[in-house]
Each structure stands twice: as structure tokens, then as C-alpha cells.
């Protein structure tokens, strides 16, 4: 290869490199990215249009995977949580507060006595993989009815015990999702109490949504009119990193 041709190729390569950085800069430009979010509104709109109470498919016991992947936080580093694990969650209570008429503090036994649902469903990670498992838990609709949501309560914030990448995990649910029959606060997985890796002692299962919506280590449910003041203000740990709050696709 002649020197000139080599130099030409080299400059071509560096030009391609420049073009790429230029692309990346444009692709991340807020003025470019913001209009793209119209897709999130359309996706949510389709779900609401087709019926907010449609059930996700439920599978049979034979479909349950022996290899259900635990993702995100699998062993919370937080001292408060470690203390709870040490006592097998003996002193643990779920706080229900915010815009509710009757704030609650429920023990695990009290939650187990609430109207419950068992469902064998497919868990879809935003990364692309899926695992089928059986979940049993208290239905969120009756639980929130017990607390009595105020009319101005628009979202339920799920405050979690785990810190991931320096920030507390949290999630938010729309009020309309609270009454979905498959929205449960799960305490059992595959017939046994939740393990730490899967969110002990209590986690959300809102079937029809991706895995990052299924908050683990739930400590507190707070009814709010706006989530702008919580975390990074986007309605969830991963939402604060740029993921859509609507996690149905």
C-alpha cells in the first residue's frame, strides 16, 4: 500500500470518528431528544385506549422457570436493610401515607391477611430477557382503599430500602394502575417468601410493565399529586436515568 493511500485511509478513519462524535452530540441534544418522547405519550395512550384493566397473560405451574434472574439490586448495601434481614424482618412495617385519609403502618402478617391474588406471569426486563414466575401478594386496590386515597392523589410513590449507584430506588404508579387486578404487593414467589435477591420482604408486581417498574424492598407507599420533588423528579430511579415512565413497551 502506498504511503499516500495509507494516509488517505487514516484520514478517512479519523473523519469517520469525527462524524460519529458529531452524531452522538446531535443524538443527545435535548432539542432533538425531547420531541422523540411523543412516542411515550402515544404508547401510553394506546394502553389507556384499549382498556386499563386488561389482564396480562397468566401461565401454568409447568411454565415456571427454575432460573429466574434477579437483576438491579440483589443485595441492598444499606445498613437499615441489613438490620432488617438480620432479624428476619421481625420489626418491619409498610408505611402508607401522603394524600390518604387514614395513614397506615402494616406488619407483614397484616398484609398477608389482606385480599390477595396469586398469578403466574412473565417478567420482562427492559434489557430484553423474560422469566416466568408465580407471585402471591396483597392486591393494591383494596389496600389503598383501606387507607382512603384523597381526590387529589394522582400517583403512588413506592419508596424502597435499596441504594443503587448512589441513589435510593423508587418508582411511581399512576392511580389508574392501582386498581388493576394484577397490581399486587407480592410477599411470596413460587410458593415461598421472597428472597433478598427478589425483593424481600415486599415488592411490586404490576404485570403489563417492564421489570424496572417492579420495585423491590418496598418500605413505604406515598400518595402524591406530583412526583417532581422526589428523587430526580422523573418518577422513578431508572426514569431519572432517561427511561420512559410508561414502562408498557
Amino acid at each position: 500500500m502506498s504511503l499516500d493511500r495509507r494516509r488517505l485511509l487514516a484520514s478517512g478513519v479519523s473523519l469517520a470518528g469525527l462524524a460519529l462524535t458529531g452524531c452522538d452530540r446531535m443524538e443527545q441534544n435535548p432539542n432533538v431528544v425531547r420531541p422523540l418522547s411523543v412516542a411515550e405519550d402515544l404508547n401510553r395512550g394506546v394502553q389507556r385506549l384499549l382498556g386499563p384493566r386488561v389482564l396480562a397473560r397468566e401461565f401454568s405451574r409447568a411454565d415456571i422457570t427454575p432460573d429466574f434472574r434477579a437483576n438491579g439490586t440483589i443485595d441492598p448495601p444499606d445498613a437499615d436493610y441489613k438490620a432488617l434481614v438480620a432479624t428476619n424482618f421481625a420489626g418491619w412495617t409498610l408505611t402508607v401515607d401522603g394524600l390518604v385519609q387514614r395513614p397506615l403502618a402494616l406488619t407483614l402478617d397484616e398484609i398477608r391477611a389482606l385480599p390477595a391474588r396469586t398469578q403466574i406471569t412473565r417478567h420482562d426486563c427492559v434489557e430484553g430477557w423474560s422469566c416466568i414466575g408465580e407471585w402471591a401478594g396483597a392486591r393494591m386496590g383494596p389496600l389503598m382503599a383501606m387507607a382512603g386515597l384523597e381526590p387529589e392523589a394522582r400517583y403512588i410513590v413506592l419508596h424502597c430500602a435499596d441504594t443503587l449507584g448512589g441513589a435510593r430506588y423508587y418508582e411511581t404508579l399512576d392511580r389508574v394502575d392501582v386498581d388493576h387486578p394484577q397490581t399486587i404487593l407480592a410477599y411470596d414467589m413460587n410458593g415461598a417468601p421472597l428472597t433478598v435477591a427478589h425483593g424481600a420482604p415486599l415488592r411490586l408486581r404490576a404485570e403489563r410493565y417492564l421489570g424496572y417498574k417492579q420495585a423491590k424492598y418496598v418500605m413505604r407507599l406515598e400518595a402524591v399529586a406530583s412526583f417532581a420533588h422526589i428523587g430526580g423528579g422523573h418518577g422513578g430511579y431508572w426514569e431519572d436515568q432517561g427511561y420512559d415512565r410508561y414502562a408498557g413497551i
Partner: protein
Amino acid sequence: MTDAAAAPTRPKRVLVRRHGLVTRVTHWVNALSIFFLLLSGLQIFNAHPALYWGQQSDFAHPWLAMGAYEQAGRLHGVTRVGETLFDTTGFLGASKEGGVTVARGFPSWLTIPSFRFLALGRRYHFFFAWLFAINGAVYVATALLGGHLKRDLAPTRDQLEPRHVLGEIWDHMRLKFPRGEAAKRYNVLQKGAYLGVAFVLLPVMVLTGMTMSPSLDADFPWLLDLFGGRQSARSIHFIAASLIVLFFLVHIAMVVASGAWNNVRSMVTGRYAITLPRPDVQPGDAP
């Protein structure tokens, strides 16, 4: 006109109407959408570069997977197809990102954005998915109602004769393309490719994409039965995308081989030049 006056016996070059306005506009919107969908799709694939069959992931048995391992301080990329492993260092499994070799499925020059950023890749993907689906719906509706499908795309009886089809294949292999009157219509291989892409491959992309949405699965549970589960749908989505890339490569090669400028002009202005052997033919609309 001046050509004919100057040399009345020479073959005459005329511009005919080739592509309607809807075909032209939807073609370019489609091309733009597929460009972004493909590259943001590879970003999404890279978040879990493994494919499975069925409802869920059998992590120990993907039919396709890309990974990396370190040996003697160097990162090696491995692609697994079934039970067979291939060293794909530098392209699949491990490739350079900002001068450093990192573990990633597809390389940075094939993903949007170039570095790992699933959230942004999804944002691009869903925006262009909507644009692509609406554009496709406009195209299909006008093709069916406006006669484009029947007039231009459906093969005629004579084109479907085995002898004719074999002849076309033989001609294409020698890069010999129809001329004159015969160039006014799509040849049978073009028709087959366009019908297959527009009415099979692209709709399969939309439907398998929808099947990966847990919410749309609740709304349309038949999607899961149609494709054999969410993970099968993800695999089919990937395979169909690969076939689109294959179509694109052949499409571009044929466009160049049969007259790049004439083809591009016809998809922009609608006018396509053909050479007629007799000078007495009036320029005009294609039949």
C-alpha cells in the same frame, strides 16, 4: 424533441412517469425510519445480546449470543450460533469504543448512540417505530385503494411463467436489465422482492415488535400465539431485520447496476428515462 429532429432514426430517450407521489414520499420516510430503527435496534439488542425461542429466556441455551472473555490481558469477542463458537473479536462481542476494546454485542459504529445508552436507544426506536408504522399504513392503504398494488406490483400471468422467471434470474445474474417498453414496468423479481418486503417482512417487524411489549401482549394475546412467545418474537424481529439489511444491500446494488441517477431521480421527481427503439413513439405516461 430536439433529439428526434436531429437524428430521426436514432433510438429515442423519453421520460415516463414511474412513481406516484405517495410511493415517493413513503419510500423516503420509510428509508429514514429504517435507518434509525436498525441502528437504535442494535443498541437495544446490545443490552442483552442473546436470543432464545419460546415464551421466556433459557439463559443456558440461547440460539445466538455474543459475549467477551479476557485472556492474557486482552478482551476477546465470541459469537455463539447454536453450539458453535466463533472468534469475532473487533466486530461482535468485543470491539473498540473510543480507542479501548470493550465488551459489546454490535460495534459502536452500528449503534445509536455509539456508546452504551439503552434508554436513549429506546427513545429513538419508539419514535421511528411510530413514524414507520404510520407511514407504512398510508402506503398500504393507498396501494390497495389507489391501484398501485394491482397495477404495478402484482405479477401478470405471463411474468409468472417458470420460463420467464428463470430467464429474469439469468438476466439479473448477468446484470442485464429490461430496456425500452419492458423497462416501463417492474420485472417479476422486483415485484416479488417489493411485495415480500412491503407486505410480509415489514408487517412482521411491526407485529413482532408489538409482541415484545408486555402491555400490548395483554391487549392482543393472540400475538404471543402467532409468534410462539415473547422471546420467539424477539428472535424473529432480529431475523426479519437481518433480511431487511439483505434486501437493502441487493436493492442498492441493483439501483447502481441499472442506472443509479435514473433510479434516484425517478424516486424523487417520479420521472424515469427509458430508451425506445423507434422515434415515432410519443413520450407519455406509463400504461
